[in-house]
């Protein structure tokens, strides 16, 4: 689905992504792990068109999408969430969700004043969809709250909700689970699995929580210092000595591999 070839992203002399190559299989939930500062978020930013790559190529279903602006990638069904939750703070939660779908009739000045009936219809549909999403995420009681007033965890849910407002093809989730309590984390996990199964979303999930990764992801890719260290099932990754050295450490290996085996 997505193939990244020898991607580099340099900030001045610093190589945040340093020759990463990987491919994401269609229909998979791929995990992306690695130590802090490994370049995971930067990789997302480059793929999603937020940052131009220094060199390298990204293709989606064979089509070169390197450096396309984010809204064009959005139109192609490529969505991402932010590690630090973003929201339109002065709009309500529901409005935040309704902003997501592109190509709405009401987007041009002309239609705004002259195609009001069609816009009303569209908005009614969007509103229904937004309410369904909020219910799904168990935050429907917050729908009229200003998004800026949500708690950190609730904002993370809103991030996920955004990806459910359109028919995405591939969704990059940057630590959706961080700062979210266990129960909610399970809800998010359920949501991801359902979207993957029922709607055929492909996911790439950055997480530091190994249980979460274990539950959802196959395969798992481990990055360190801007490079891909290893790829395989979580068990394989955990057994990989480079990964143990760079990220997991020996203590964790013994403990969790034992638990999940």
């Amino acid at each position, binding site marked *: 689905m997505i193939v990244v070839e020898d991607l580099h992203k340099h900030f001045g002399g610093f190589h945040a992504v340093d020759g990463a190559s990987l491919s994401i299989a269609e229909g998979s939930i791929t995990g992306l792990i690695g130590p802090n500062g490994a370049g995971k978020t930067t990789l997302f930013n480059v793929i999603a068109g937020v940052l131009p790559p220094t060199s390298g190529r990204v293709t989606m279903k064979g089509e070169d999408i390197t450096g396309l602006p984010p809204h064009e990638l959005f139109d192609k069904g490529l969505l991402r969430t932010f590690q630090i939750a*973003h929201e339109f703070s002065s709009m309500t939660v529901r409005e935040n969700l309704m902003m997501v779908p*592109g190509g709405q009739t009401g987007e041009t000045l002309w239609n705004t004043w002259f195609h009001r009936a069609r816009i009303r219809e569209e908005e009614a549909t969007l509103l229904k969809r937004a309410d369904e999403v909020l219910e799904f995420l168990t935050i429907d009681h917050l729908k009229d709250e200003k998004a800026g007033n949500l708690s950190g965890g609730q904002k993370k849910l809103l991030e996920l909700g*955004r990806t459910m407002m359109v028919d995405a093809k591939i969704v990059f989730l940057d630590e959706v689970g961080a700062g979210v309590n266990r129960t909610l984390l399970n809800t998010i996990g359920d949501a991801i699995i359902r979207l993957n199964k029922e709607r055929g979303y492909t996911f790439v999930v950055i997480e530091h929580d190994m249980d979460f990764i274990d539950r959802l992801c196959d395969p798992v890719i481990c990055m360190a210092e801007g490079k891909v260290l290893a790829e395989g099932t979580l068990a394989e990754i955990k057994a990989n000595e480079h990964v143990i050295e760079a990220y997991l450490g020996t203590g964790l290996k013994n403990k969790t591999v034992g638990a999940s085996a």
Partner: protein
Amino acid sequence: MDFLNAIVALANFVIIPATVYGSQLALGALGVTLIYGILRFSNFAHGDTMAFGTMVTILITWWFQSMGINFGILPTALLALPFGIAITSLFLLGTDRVVYKFYREKKSEPVIFVIVSLGVMFMMNGIVRFIIGTGDQRFADGERFIISTREFKAMTGLQEGLAIRFTQGITVVTAIIVVAALFYFLNRTRTGKSMRAFSDNEDLALLSGINPERVVMVTWIIVAGLATIAGVLYGLDKTFKPFTYFQLLLPIFASAIVGGLGNPLGAIAGGFVIAFSEVSVTYAFKKVLGYLLPESLEPDSLVQLLSTDYKFAVSFVILIIVLLVKPTGLFKGKSV
């Protein structure tokens, strides 16, 4: 009686002119604030955009007048206004295409945009002076009054007179309509919400299927509308002179910053704060106090804090105070 006379004098020389001037500043500041919020730079060419829009409207007004077309009791300029806005929109979209777009694609720093807008300002400045000249132009087909001093005196029997010019009434009414329409647009329509979304969180807006180029386009069109309306109202109320419009940049920026840059509500409040301060600081209160105080206490001087020549200093001082005390402005804007 004296008390009423004092109030009438105050209304006539302070309250009414300041309300009118405040409306004009508010419309100007709205344009500046929208550009700052959405395109993220301080547009120094805004005063000259107002001049350009007004010039086009004046030319069309003259043409209408020469053809004998009029708008009943309303100034012909109001009839020419939509055409003025349309042409100014095209002009701004053209400027964006050939100038700003280049820097946007390069993702230049805001400070580069500010300097670029300075260049655009000089260009517009030249165009306007080349076409219409540097002199004073009147285009308000004659002065008409809603109520004149004489009528008011005859009506009330007061010593002090009160005059409200037609153009003053039009200014306030138009400003109210425009502001209401703008807020409806920003809060209720998808296009308006896209603009707010863009101003609120650009990164997220870009990832939400919002086409940034379209938002930019709509912003320029709305700014053209606001600038032309503000300029024409100011010109109808006083006269049109390119240099005056260039000077208006200071009180307009002061209004936008005092209210909180990027915040539309703030721009309006700021406009009135600046207008009322400017008018009352430069007004000689001798007359008003003369009515209110007993004869022995009556002031000999004019009781005028600043001569009108220094009126721009008022904006400047308020600006500095606000930046020192509350850098985000009265309403929460983006900090500058």
